[in-house]
């Protein structure tokens, strides 16, 4: 009897299916917690033409959280801590199971242009181009919304993105007026990105962007942009050499009476060169028309006035590892309102950046 029971148990064990290979792999983290990274930026600025004290400043810090929600979604969050408050800058979910399309839903940084996609600590120059704050926002266009990015079947990388966002009026951070409260105000975006490998080491990217919505004045307001990037990363020295040549043009306008009226517009062109694993230098020229900047103010009222702003910036960065850098930058700008106010703006800046925890994959 006992032998029969033992035989039955053994047979049952032999028939037990082998445990399937666990399908819980994450490329972000093998731990149960989200991947967590934290970045801090500090700035020392000496701007002789600005009415501000010299000296160190806490610029901002940012915590990034990233993990897999379930087999269908990932969730990303970037929360910024700045002197003027805390901002859940980006909190969005992305799909992982739709062929050729990635949906992004939440509070987003709209896929407009090139510079507008960057977090502050990833800016190639300490100061964002002047045209950014005068068109879509110094840190890009940020709003609650949804985007669908379609990787088209073309032989080269060709991505078409469409997005819709929550409308909001213009403010210091959002120069675009999408503040109409009418039901048909759904600001939308179209973005085309093309990338080709010219050689194994050099790529070219060409993009075009358009963002449109209805303003508080009832008119359509829009921003348009075009960008070109040439990038060289020698495959045999991918973390030691290389250069980036990038240019972008952005304009903002509105359609009073149905006819387009351009407001602010401008461009920048920059060249960055990597001398070694730990040293980068950069040079940027830019021009913005009918635009505002902190040094261009009416001397009698102190109110900002629009004008033509031209600026050249040069920097050198020391990057002892992937997780920190020290950057020295000098910029000279001439602002001119065309009516006699033409201040010079000279700034010497030192920026320090530190990252701990999860290190996000290097954006190209």
């Amino acid at each position: 009897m006992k032998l029969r029971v033992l035989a039955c148990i053994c047979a049952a064990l032999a028939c037990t299916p082998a445990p399937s290979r666990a399908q819980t792999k994450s490329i972000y983290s093998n731990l149960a917690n989200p991947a967590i990274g934290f970045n801090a930026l500090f700035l020392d600025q000496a701007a002789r033409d600005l009415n501000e004290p010299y000296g160190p400043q806490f610029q901002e810090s940012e915590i990034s959280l990233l993990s897999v929600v379930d087999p269908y979604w990932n969730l990303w969050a970037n929360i910024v801590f700045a002197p003027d408050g805390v901002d859940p800058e980006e909190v969005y979910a992305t799909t992982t199971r739709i062929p050729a399309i990635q949906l992004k839903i939440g509070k987003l940084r709209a896929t407009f242009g090139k510079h507008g996609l960057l977090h502050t600590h990833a800016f190639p120059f300490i100061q964002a181009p002047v045209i950014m704050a005068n068109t879509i926002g110094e840190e890009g266009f940020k709003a609650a919304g949804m985007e669908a990015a379609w990787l088209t079947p073309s032989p080269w990388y060709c991505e078409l993105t469409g997005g819709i966002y929550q409308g909001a009026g213009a403010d210091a951070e959002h120069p675009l007026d999408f503040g109409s409260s009418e039901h048909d105000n759904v600001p939308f975006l179209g973005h085309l990105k093309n990338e080709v490998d010219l050689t194994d080491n050099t790529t070219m990217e060409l993009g075009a962007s358009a963002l449109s919505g209805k303003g508080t004045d009832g008119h359509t307001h829009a921003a348009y942009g075009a960008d070109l990037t040439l990038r060289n990363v020698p495959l045999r020295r991918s973390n030691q050499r290389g250069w980036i040549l990038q240019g972008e043009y952005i304009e903002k306008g509105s359609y009073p009476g149905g006819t387009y009226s351009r407001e602010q517009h401008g461009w920048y062109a920059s060249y960055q060169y990597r001398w070694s694993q730990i040293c980068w230098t950069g040079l940027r020229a830019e021009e913005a028309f009918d635009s505002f900047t902190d040094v261009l103010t009416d001397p009698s009222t102190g109110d900002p006035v629009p004008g033509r702003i031209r600026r050249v910036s040069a920097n050198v960065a020391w990057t002892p590892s992937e997780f920190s850098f020290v950057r020295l930058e000098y910029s000279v700008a001439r602002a001119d309102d065309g009516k006699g106010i033409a201040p010079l703006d000279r700034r010497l800046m030192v920026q320090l950046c530190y990252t701990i925890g999860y290190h996000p994959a290097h954006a190209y």
Partner: protein
Amino acid sequence: MKSFLRWMLALAIILAAAPAFADLRVATSLTDLASVAESVGGRHVTVMSLCKGYEDPHFVPAKPSLMKAIQNADVFVSVGLELDGGWLPLVLPGSRNPKIQPGTPGFVDASEGIDVLEKPTGTVSRAEGDVHPLGNPHYYLDPKNLEIVAAHLAAVFSALDPANAADYSANARAFGDRMEGALAKWQAELAPYKGASVVTFHRNFIYFANRFGLKLFGNVEPKPGIPPTPRHIAELAQAMRQAGVRVVLYQPYYDADASRDVAGKAGGVAVEIPTEVGGTPDAKDVLSKFDSIVSSLVKAFSNK
């Protein structure tokens, strides 16, 4: 009529000459995995590697063209242990290919089943440089580990393409047999140098050293991801002289000047070796890669 028949014949010849459509499209993060996948998959697979053999696998630029390249892959084989963690988390989602995302049958972590060396114990900190917190990921430098990878891939390919499962199993066994035969030859060639010490640029040689009885004396980079300083080069060279270590090994994607500087100061020789398939022109697959490494080492040790 004759013209029509001629055109039909020409069309038939063209179609017959056209490559057969492979059953599985396989993409890998590293060339060694691609080489093993080709051996296991045979005529049933087309294989490509995102990282080239002469490229540092830690720092592959996450170009959009890489995302495009794997948009229609059926299988993606990651080296695992976060060696490709600097770029793969952008490339995989960017491909918008649901078949190969982590957690799907088409995503393979090739490090599964590997006995991982140098797993950090205690606190892991970047004070030690850009450490690999899951252990040393360069396991593909032990021929026996590639046999484990081959068996793993055979299982994955068989699950996705059951019709050819018998071929995948047979190919994996044949690969294992070839590797075992070659391993015996390489061990015989390096036997006279068992116990010899080498310096490497990056700490990526532990699996090879363990398999073939070599010792690792130090690294040209003072810590992972930190470029060599003149002081470190001088100290390392002096230590090498005192210990009688003469061989410095480096990969094509590392700073040859620093390695040659160390070797020169130590009175030794700096040797470029392909730790990945394609790293040098003679490393066309995993077998010829190990042939190249072994012959380079034998030449370096015997010329002391």
